[in-house]
């Protein structure tokens, strides 16, 4: 399959995944150094999903994200420096410090926000799809959500609404093997992708250690949506490599309480970034990207570090338009 892949696309996908991974490794470091307030949920391991999907999107397409949102934002084109400043709670952050990791948004590139409520983003994406229909535009909307979210009521409701109204929505369920601290199969009956059929929506499973596979599935779903044929559900399977939230050990005493080290190590063999790097026939290109990303992360941290915290009176701003 590699033979037919466009090298530019490969590099583009590599850059996106590399940015996400490096950004988050830095976030973890800063979190444990006590530099970041609040909660961070990292996306490490799942980069191929956001990347493969968002590579098919335009700036005027919309995504809704989750508590585990950094990857979706970066893949959709958010700036690392303003993201980082937000994580610091600084006024130069995307939300001027009002949102934090679970609520970062960049409306200028169609990112309607991370969302702290599991299942909360699906209806919002459906609404963006509705707007596209009302405006007779070929914009599409993507809802990213987890396996856990597929058990929330908004999941079935959203599939149904998007299906009967034939809305250009792509539902991307990231089955990362866990719903917080419980293995997915203990909580989630059947096969998530198959739930789509009952709503007359195509459902596909993709193994998300391979970004090209994800990209292709998303390409078809996006094309279908743009053509007016309605929604698609993609179940992308790939374990998360890190904790549910950084610092989860303070809550539950450590990750080996809910998965074994061996199983995790086996899963980490399926690293989408390594997989892609091995397929790319351009070591210089890769090295250039690695350097550029490293520099961008440095710059983002510097930007975040020097962004002032907001003054207390700012707490009352930004409520109403």
């Amino acid at each position, binding site marked *: 399959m590699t033979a037919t892949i466009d090298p530019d696309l490969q590099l583009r996908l590599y850059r996106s995944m590399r940015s996400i991974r490096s950004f988050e490794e830095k976030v973890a470091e800063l979190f444990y150094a006590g530099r970041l307030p609040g909660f961070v949920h990292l996306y490490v391991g799942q980069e191929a999903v956001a990347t493969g999907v968002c590579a098919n999107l335009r700036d005027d397409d*919309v995504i*809704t994200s989750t508590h585990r949102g950094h990857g979706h934002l970066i893949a959709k084109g958010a700036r690392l420096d303003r993201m980082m400043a937000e994580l610091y709670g600084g006024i130069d*952050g*995307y*939300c*001027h*410090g*009002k*949102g934090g990791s679970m*609520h970062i*948004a*960049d*409306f200028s590139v169609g990112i*309607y*926000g991370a*969302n702290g*409520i599991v299942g*909360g983003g*699906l*209806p*919002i*994406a*459906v*609404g*963006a*799809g*509705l*707007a*596209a229909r*009302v*405006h007779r535009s070929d914009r599409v*909307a993507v809802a990213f959500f987890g396996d856990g979210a597929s058990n929330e*009521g*908004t999941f079935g*409701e*959203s599939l*149904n*609404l998007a299906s*009967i*109204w034939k809305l250009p929505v792509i539902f991307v369920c990231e089955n990362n093997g866990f719903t917080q601290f419980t293995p997915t199969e203990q909580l989630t009956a059947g096969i998530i992708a198959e739930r789509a059929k009952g709503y007359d929506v195509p459902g596909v499973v993709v193994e998300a250690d391979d970004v090209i596979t994800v990209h292709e599935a998303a390409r078809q779903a996006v094309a279908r949506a743009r053509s007016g044929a309605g929604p698609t559900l993609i179940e992308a399977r790939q374990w998360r490599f890190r904790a549910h939230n950084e610092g989860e050990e303070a809550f539950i005493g450590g990750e080996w309480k809910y998965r074994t080290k061996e199983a995790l190590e086996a899963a980490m063999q399926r690293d989408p970034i390594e997989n892609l790097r091995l397929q790319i026939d351009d070591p210089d290109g890769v090295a250039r990207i690695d350097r550029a990303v490293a520099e961008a992360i440095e710059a983002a941290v510097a930007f975040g570090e020097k962004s002032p915290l907001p003054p207390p009176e700012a707490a009352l*701003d*930004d*409520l*109403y*338009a």
Partner: protein
Amino acid sequence: MAVITITEAMRDAIGEELERDPNVIVYGEDVELSVYGAQNGLVERFGRERIWNAPLSEATFVGAGLGAAMSGVRPVIDLMIGTFTYVAMDQLYNQAAKLRYMSGGQAKMPVVVMCVCGARGSAAAQHSDSPYPLFMSASGIKVVLPSTPADAKGLLKASIRDDNPVLFFEPLSLLGEKGEVPDEEFIVPLGRADIKRRGDTVTIVGVGATVKMALEAATTLAAEGIEAEVVDVRTLRPLDENAILESVRKTGRLVVADEARQPGLAAEVSAIAAERAFDTLRAPVARVFTPNVPVPFSPPLEGAVLPSAEKVAAAARRVVNGAT
């Protein structure tokens, strides 16, 4: 001026805004036939690309309203009955009310969610609440409840043009009330109370159904030499605290009449007065409200729990004449 019902006034408001702005759309369960009438005839005029019947999935179609609004559409969502807000509560209280603030002011959400509220005709517990108190503490949302056809029209037009989520309650027991509505186009701005009757013995603050009760009570009381000033808050959030305080400072006496269970508008207005008009208060504040039970089915029970003009008048006498 035309004399029309509140329902007709709302229908006119929606129709005018649909005419005026192609981004306005209307959806909800059975809006084509329109259960309570505010969307009656719209599908014939504007077609199914503007008027959509929605499936039963309130959480999702309210949430979709936010997404559509953030994308430049101005959805007017009919949620039919106020108690269905509970099913959509997260999308209202935790999303609509917060997305703009959390995004640092990026989100713009011109969406109206409308539904009837209050009890009438033995609809029983699960269809009879007045849920607006719950939304008074929901931050970035506006909450409206008119009591006359003119207000209903002007406030609904203002709500549709507002760039924030607006929860627009329709007072069930007053939907058929007729009143004069200006012929020319007009808007009633959100956030301003209206003095529906002038008086200087006692202030009666009401909203929706209790405004009518307050006015009836005022007529009775006037015959007894008590001149009540009736303040219709109209918008519960933002609340026009100054108008309320001004009246209370003038009369020195306060009754708050509210069909909802408490804490709600009655508690809030009472607290505001106890904090900021204390020195001018000459008597205890009285509240008239529905006691904390579900609204019962059988007519004598329903009547027993709901406020009425008599209960409002009795409360006013109490604060004017002292406890009896």
